[in-house]
């Protein structure tokens, strides 16, 4: 097992490569997901306000068509 991790003496280079890549990819993904979640929460709040403010007129939809 330790042989696997030492990679013939080059373990530090190899694991650093894989580790950094994994880290960067995960950080990018998590940052995106977090941003997405917070933006979704904010948007849902705003959309709720929009729906409540929405004028109830059927005429408008006819016009929209």
């Amino acid at each position, binding site marked *: 097992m330790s042989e696997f991790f030492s990679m013939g003496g080059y373990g530090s280079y190899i694991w650093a490569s894989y580790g950094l890549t994994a880290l960067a990819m995960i950080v990018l993904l998590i940052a995106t997901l977090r941003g997405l979640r917070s933006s979704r929460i904010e948007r849902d709040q705003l959309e709720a306000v*929009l729906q409540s*403010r*929405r*004028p109830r007129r059927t005429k*408008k*939809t006819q016009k*929209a*068509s």
Partner: protein
Amino acid sequence: MADFSGSDLTCLRGERLVFGGLSFSAKSGDAVMLRGRNGAGKSSLLRLMAGLLAPRSGALCWNGESIADDRAAHHARTHYLGHQDAIKPVLTVRDNLRLWGQLRGVPDLEAAIDRALNALQIHHLSRVTGRYLSSGQKRRTALARILIGESHLWLLDEPTVGLDRESCAELAQLIAEFRARGGVVVYSTHIDLDVENPTILDLDDFAIPMVEWLAEQDDIEDMAQAMRAPSSQEAAQ
């Protein structure tokens, strides 16, 4: 007889809806005065008319032809006066004006510049460099620019800013002469400019509250989806 018209214009700046569903029409000799509170889109409309901005929807037409089809022709017949005077501090008044005349290919340019300077009573400043001009004199120089070269449409964005009362009267006079020659003037102003019988276009009338606009967009989308869904089902059957 020229005819300048816009139909069902919608203007968006970034995510902001400035105005929607705006239509207007002006014939030779007409003056259109733009009114509205700050942010109602007076400048935006003038920039649309000049061709600096593209409308989100709707069309602007000159004699029935869309201005987007032949921009060079539209630019050739239009004089636009924006908020800024476009005066270089190191060039003389005459040199400043000369460039714009040359770009329009005005024949006998020096005489045309003389006429324009005389019309605005700044001929004595023709050799003064821009940096020594007062703001009113700069504004007059900018106004002199729109007198150089033939044009059929003036788009004046707050032309009276920086002008004193006499100058405003002169400007009104120039506008009257231009209309008499068959030109179309569209202008916005905060003070009363003594223009005879202008058509008033109140941009506040075309301000769609964005709440409604956004809701309406949802409706259009929902409807489009509703229409799409059954048709695809039919196709499947």
